[in-house]
């Protein structure tokens, strides 16, 4: 585990070192040759590299939770199948028997999987899985934001700010409309 973290740190440092170096080395020439969005993009290279390096670590975590998730499903499937096998040995191979087998199979699988979905271990792992997936999505959002900034477009955060402003404005208008309505009603009375 410690070894794994050393390796990650090593790659992270190496990547950051070279992206810094490249940025410094190229800054003079890019300043001369490029202005505006392209210039921004080159200076933002470091941010993108950082995000990608961090994303690597999270991808490993995500994979671990995903493996555990599939293992939980496959273990439950195996156990349910074993239980079905042990309970269906005496079912005769006729039409009624097939129906009975189908019923037993569905009931046992339903019970086993509901037991799994209802367990703490499943819920914890599933939510860790979703959580790391969201972490990865956050990294992707940050990278996209860097690109958008370079292209002089509003970032996710800036768009959110607009949404929030609109929301506040709508609420204010609703309040004003309500008080207007109430005063109109009072006048009518």
């Amino acid at each position: 585990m410690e070894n794994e973290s050393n390796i990650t740190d090593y790659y992270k440092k190496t990547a950051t070192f070279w992206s810094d170096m490249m940025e410094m080395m190229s800054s003079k020439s890019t300043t001369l040759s490029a202005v505006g969005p392209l210039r921004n993009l080159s200076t933002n290279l470091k941010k993108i590299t950082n995000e990608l390096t961090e994303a690597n670590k999270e991808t490993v975590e995500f994979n671990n939770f995903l493996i555990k998730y599939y293992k939980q499903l496959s273990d439950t499937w195996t156990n349910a199948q074993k239980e079905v096998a042990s309970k269906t040995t005496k079912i005769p191979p006729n039409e009624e028997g097939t129906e009975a087998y189908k019923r037993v199979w569905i009931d046992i699988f339903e019970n086993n999987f509901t037991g799994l979905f209802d367990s703490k271990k499943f819920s914890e792992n599933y939510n860790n899985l979703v959580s790391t997936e969201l972490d990865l999505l956050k990294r992707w959002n940050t990278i996209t934001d860097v690109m958008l900034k370079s292209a002089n477009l509003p970032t996710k955060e800036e768009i959110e700010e607009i949404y929030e402003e609109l929301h506040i404005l709508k609420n204010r208008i609703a309040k004003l409309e309500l008080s207007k309505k109430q005063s109109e009603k009072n006048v009518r009375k």
Partner: protein
Amino acid sequence: MSENKFDPRIIGNLLNFGRSFIQAPMKASIPHDVDIGSTQFDVAYKEDKMRLLHFRPLTSRQVRTPLLISYAIINRYYIFDIDPKKSWVKNLLEQGFDVYLIDWGTPSKIDKFLGFDEYVNRYMDNCVDFICDETNVDKVSIQGYCTGGTLAAVYSSLHPERVKNLIATAPVIDGWKDTTVVSNIAKYFDVDKLVDTIGNMPPEFIYYCFSILKPFEQGVEKYIKFLDNIDDEKFVERFLKIEKWAGETPPIPGELFKQWIKGIYQDNLLIQNKMYVKNELVSLKNIDMPVFTQVAVGDHLVSPECSMPLHYAVSSTDKILKLYPTGHVGMIASSFSQKTVLPELGKWLKERS
């Protein structure tokens, strides 16, 4: 020896199943093209994405107090009018009720900040206001289904003076008592992270929750049954309508979803009378009007234990709790609901309207 003989009927059944599988596309409509909803309505009022539908009357004499149905925030309102013979709204119209229904619409990213406050104190209150103005009454009866039942209960607590009668159909009330696997997922869910990263609760997550509820009965057996009944036109039509409904759910506004998961499933504030909407305490004890709580014993989406506490939490003296031997959808869109649930509701409501 003869007991172990292979039954040729099994081969026959397999061949029949194969035939049904091949013929299915010819015998059934394309699921997404199925027409749903036949009762006529007008959009009486609209605010942002929310629409207030007013169903056209089917009788000359109408019950004085109008009925406002608060649909859930999951799936679409048309489950209340899924089929002319199993239509909840049509039945109520035929009983002489003046029926309005709230369709919450499809929230987009711009609606991320909408929460309980906007849904209850703005949209719902404006709908009630509109209906009162239109029909010259001071109060309306409100029916809430599923998560719409929760919104209706919160509204009735915050605005009891506007509610003549409350009907809560499979409402989500006591999250800690909910025995479905959804509550188990919700317990450890990092809802802040989801909302901060994605914004609204995406439909895909909701479909995931549906998929873990009875995965083999709902995910395997149901479809085998569908193919077994492929020659039964009525069965096929109804099956596709319900499937279409189950497969169409809008996103849930981020803030509302956050308040929902924290306030109902994680901290269970509503039933403890500790929930706040904006700065106002939601006390279920404020609910003093007649209350009819409808619970389905076989509900696999909202367990009866989660809905029933509403009956005991309100301060109304005129209240009734009814348990029906059906499921979440069966309670509102089935022959059973037409024969049992709706006549009982109609009788109760007429006596109080």
